[in-house]
Structure formats: C-alpha cells, structure tokens
C-alpha cells in the first residue's frame, strides 16, 4: 500500500524539515523553561547540601537568612554545644557583595564561616583550583564564573583579599555566585562602620559596636541516636530562637522562595505548549489546505477517507516527532549560554514528548475535519 504521508513529505522534504525546525525551536524554548526551573531547584539546594547541617538556628520569628534578615549572637554556637544531643555548631554569615569586575561589578553572595570550625561550607568536590581558607583574614574562595584565578587579589571594604581557591557550580538560592570568607572578615564587611561613623558614634556616647559579634545563623549537627526534631524543639523552648531542620529549611527554600518563580515558569511553559499546539495545528491546516484539490480528486476517484486521514495524522505526528528532536538538539546547544543554571533532564524531555504527541494528534483534527468535509465534486470543473 502506498504511504501518502511518506510520498508527500519526500516531495517537500526541505520545506517540511524547515517547518519542523521552527516548531522545534519553540519546543526547545519549552525545554529551556523547564530547565530553568530545574536549575533553580538545584541552585537553591547547593549551599544547604554543602553545609550539611541538621539544624538551622535563626532569629526568632524569622524564616532564616535564605528568606529574610536574621541576626543571632555568634556565641550562641558555644551555648548550643553544651546542649544535649548537639554534636557540632558553628556561626555563619550571608551577605550580598559586589566584587570588582573587568567591566562591571560582579554580584555575589558571600558566606562567612569559622575557618577553624568543625562545619565547613566549602565542598572539597567543588574546589577546582587552590585550597580552602586557611587563615582568619584576607583570604577568599571564589566561584570560577567570577573570572578570578588563584592568587588574584581584590579589594573588599577596606582590605585587600587574595584568592586562595576556586570552586565550580557554587551559587546561592537566588542564583548569585558564591564566595567564601572567614567569619571575622565577613563580620567586618557586614557590620564594620567607616572611621567617620565610628567617630560620630563615639561622640554620641556609643563606644562599642556590639554588632561585630553577630552572625546570620547558627548551624548545628545532632549526635547519632538523638531525634533531630526533639533537639530542635528543645532549643526553640529554651533559647527563644527559631529552629529549622534541614527538611524545613529546604521547604522554605523551595516553597517560599521558588514557588512563585516556579509558578511563573510553569505558566510560561504551559502558554508555550499551547502556542506550539496552535502553531502545529495551523501548519497542518495550511498543509491540508494546500492539498485540497488533490484531496478532492482522491475522494472523487474513490480513495477512502481513512487513507487520506492517515496521511494527515502521520504527517502531523512526524512533524511533532521531528520538532521534538530538533527541540532537544536546540535546547542542548544553547543551554550553556544562559547566565543561570539550566538543568535538562531526560524525564522532562519524555514528558514533553508525550505532550507533543497528544498536541499533534489534537492538531491533526483540524486537517482531518477539512478532509472529511472536502467535496469530491470540487475536482470536476464546470
């Protein structure tokens, strides 16, 4: 049996491929949008996973440094170490900085931690060059996307810092690149006033900047055998701070911070899928319209509707599958050029494949309707 779809596609192969490429680019954008969402989820959890703490102790009635401003006393880490069930606890600071860049400043999130403490947020697996921080002052570990190399120097606040290590794939929940500083340097950068301000404060009778000993969160690990939730509840009760387990902190990140973004991206993706469906439907409709004379002739000479409908549906499906393949190639080719992380996952691609197949079948209905209503008499001239 002659395959009409194959004959038609072969006859207009170039046009068909270009059309499939066009639709493929649209599907590629859908994949990129899904990849942006996946990338946000991955980015949001990088720091949380690298710190690998069981508990996050933050300012009472706040959601912690990832969601809102939080200040706790640095020495709370010492108090917590005395708590039953606590294994290790350290103070951390989080702040946004602008690193000097070649053409414009580079926005980063700086993580301050006790270089000699027992919880180190620098994941050795992400270190691509140099070493972790080894001194309490004037060292910095930067993300490689900042463009800085080991032994480069840069000025932050009043001081010159030397780059001692470079990491890869380290970004904050907001997608900003991460840099790591010692806790003291970070506190200086965050809380130290200018000399003029200090003189002004002294004149006002403010002799000491007590904020210099503040941190944004205390992270702790729980000893084996203790229930993390129980330890968290105990700290909440006695220390008047908000305490979150790692799961809760993750939920804050993914639900509170990314939920709106993911909804936005989800809506964009849905709109793009609908637009793709409409475009495929329009293309199939146009392709069918172009063949109406031939379809009328085929109906007139007795070719059954089923054979003509099969041609339309096959062409639509082949267009959908080719567009899907082109979309995947396109998305993989351009994904590295985006400033933020794009995570292209195979299950997402398969899900889109399913959507494309359903959309193609739905789209073919417009062509099929046209075929069913085609008048065979239209083939005979008056």
């Amino acid at each position, binding site marked *: *049996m*002659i395959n*009409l779809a194959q*004959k*038609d596609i*072969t*006859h*207009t192969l170039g046009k068909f491929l270009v059309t499939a490429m066009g639709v493929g680019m649209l599907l590629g954008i859908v994949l990129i949008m899904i990849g942006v969402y996946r990338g946000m989820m991955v980015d949001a959890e990088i720091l949380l996973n690298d710190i690998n703490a069981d508990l996050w102790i933050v300012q009472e009635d706040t959601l912690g440094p990832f969601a809102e401003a939080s200040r706790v006393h640095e020495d709370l880490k010492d108090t917590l170490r005395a708590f039953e069930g606590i294994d290790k606890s350290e103070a951390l600071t989080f702040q946004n900085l602008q690193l000097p860049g070649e053409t414009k400043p580079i926005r980063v999130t700086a993580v301050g931690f006790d270089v000699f403490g027992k919880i180190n947020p620098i994941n050795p697996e992400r270190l691509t060059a140099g070493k972790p921080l080894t001194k309490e002052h004037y060292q910095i570990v930067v993300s490689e996307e900042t463009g800085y190399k080991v032994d480069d120097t840069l000025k932050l606040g009043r001081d010159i810092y030397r780059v001692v290590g470079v990491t890869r794939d380290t970004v904050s929940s907001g997608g900003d690149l991460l840099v790591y500083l010692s806790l003291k340097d970070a506190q200086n950068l965050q809380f130290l006033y200018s000399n003029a301000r200090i003189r002004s404060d002294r004149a006002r009778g403010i002799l000491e900047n007590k904020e210099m000993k503040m941190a944004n969160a205390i992270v702790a690990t729980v000893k084996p055998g203790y229930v993390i939730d129980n330890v968290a509840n105990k700290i909440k009760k006695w220390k008047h701070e908000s305490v979150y387990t790692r799961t809760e902190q993750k939920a804050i990140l993914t639900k509170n911070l990314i939920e709106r973004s993911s909804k936005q991206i989800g809506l964009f993706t849905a709109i793009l899928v609908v637009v793709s469906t409409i475009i495929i439907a329009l293309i199939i409709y146009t392709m069918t319209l172009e063949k109406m*004379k*031939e379809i009328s*002739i*085929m*109906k*007139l*000479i*007795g*070719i*059954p509707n089923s*054979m003509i409908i099969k041609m339309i549906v096959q062409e639509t499906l082949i267009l959908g599958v080719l567009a899907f393949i082109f979309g995947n190639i396109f998305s993989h080719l351009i994904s590295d050029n985006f400033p933020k992380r794009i995570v292209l996952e195979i299950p997402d691609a398969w899900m889109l494949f399913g959507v494309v197949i359903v959309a193609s079948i739905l789209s073919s209905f417009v062509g099929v309707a046209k075929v069913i209503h085609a008048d*065979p*008499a239209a*083939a*005979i*001239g*008056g």
Partner: protein
Amino acid sequence: MDTQGIRVENLVKKFGQGESLVNVIDGASFVVNKGELVALIAPSGAGKTTLLMMIGCVLEPTSGKIWLGEEAVYNDRWLGSDTRRIRREKIGFIFQSHYLIPFMNVIDNVTLLPQTNGLTKDKAHAKAMELLEYLEIAEKAKSMPSQLSGGQNQRVAIARALANEPEIILADEPTAALDVERSVSVVKMLKKIAQEQNVAIIMVTHDERMLVYCDKILKIENKKIIISETQNNEHIV
C-alpha cells in the same frame, strides 16, 4: 460488445426549493454501451457537469434510475451505502487538467487506486507498466508530474483512470487544455480504449471537431437529453 455500460432512466436533478427551485436535468434517459465513446455537449451552465457527477455517484439525483454495468446504483435513492466504493471499482475519471497527485511519481499515481483496491504492489506495478506502455509513456514511469508536458500528463491521467479496470470512464473536457493535435491524439486514444478495453466512455467536450471520433452525441437541450448518432463511426485499431 454492445452490453450495457451506463443506463440512465428518467433522471431528474433539481436545486433549491420553493421559489428558488431550479430544474437542471429533467427526465434524462439514455444508454451508453461498453465499447462506445459518447460525447456530451451543451452550452455552459446547461448541466453537463451535473449529469456527469450524478452518473459518477458524486452528486445525488432528485429522482430517476442509474445502472453502471449490470449494477443498479440509484433508484430514487442510492442503493448502496458506499458510493465511493462504486467510484473506486467501476469508474475511471479524466479531468480537464490532468490532476495527478503532484507529490507522487507517474507509477505511484497509476498504482494508487489498484493498491487501494487490494492489488499487491508487484501486480499493480506490472499492470501500470502495461498501461503506460499501451499509452506510450512507459519511459516516464519514474518522473514526477511536474517534469512532464500537458499531453504526457493527460496520458498518465488516462492510465490512472484505466488502472482499476473500470466499466465506465467519465471524461470532463479532457482536451480543454490541449492544442488541436494533442486533443485529436487523446480522443483517438479514448476511442481506442473504449473499443479495446470494452469500456463505456462519456466525454464532455466543447470542441465540435472531436465529435467525429465519437459513436454518439448526447446533447442537453432545454434540460432534456437529445441523442444523435455521429456520421463517422470509424473503429480505430
């Protein structure tokens, strides 16, 4: 020879209703035997195409009777549910323009209908090549319609019309797009096909020069059919 190819009795076609009712064909009755090439002539708008479409089971008559071969297909209503099956199995169509499927080559155009009718690809190809050789266009079997001249395409269209071994052929002004020389060639070919393949052919034409090759002339005049014999009933071998 002389067995019934097309028989029409008291065929009526009306369009519209009430005050806008138009009677296009009013009681047409005639017989076209197998082996005959019959011309259908009338002024534009007189109902030639309407009559052709009714015989071709494309347009439903208002009343009357139609037989195609020995099969009664219409008796005030279609007698079968699938008129397309009748078209596929009994009728070959030839149009003003060749109307070949442009995305299929010559051999595919000719084998489309036989394969749809269940003939295997090999048998359909063998039959198609026979026809193309008969119509002296076998060397173009792999060409696309766009690569052929108008006359060559019309011969392929005739091959397509013959491919399902029809009992009747309905040709709607098959020479309208051709010059005189090619028109004569096509009509002679139809005459030859009618005689050799034992097919009843009705050919709509405006060209009176072609009437000489026909066995009979059906003329639509005042919504009625007038049948006349032609003077030249030469048999072309």
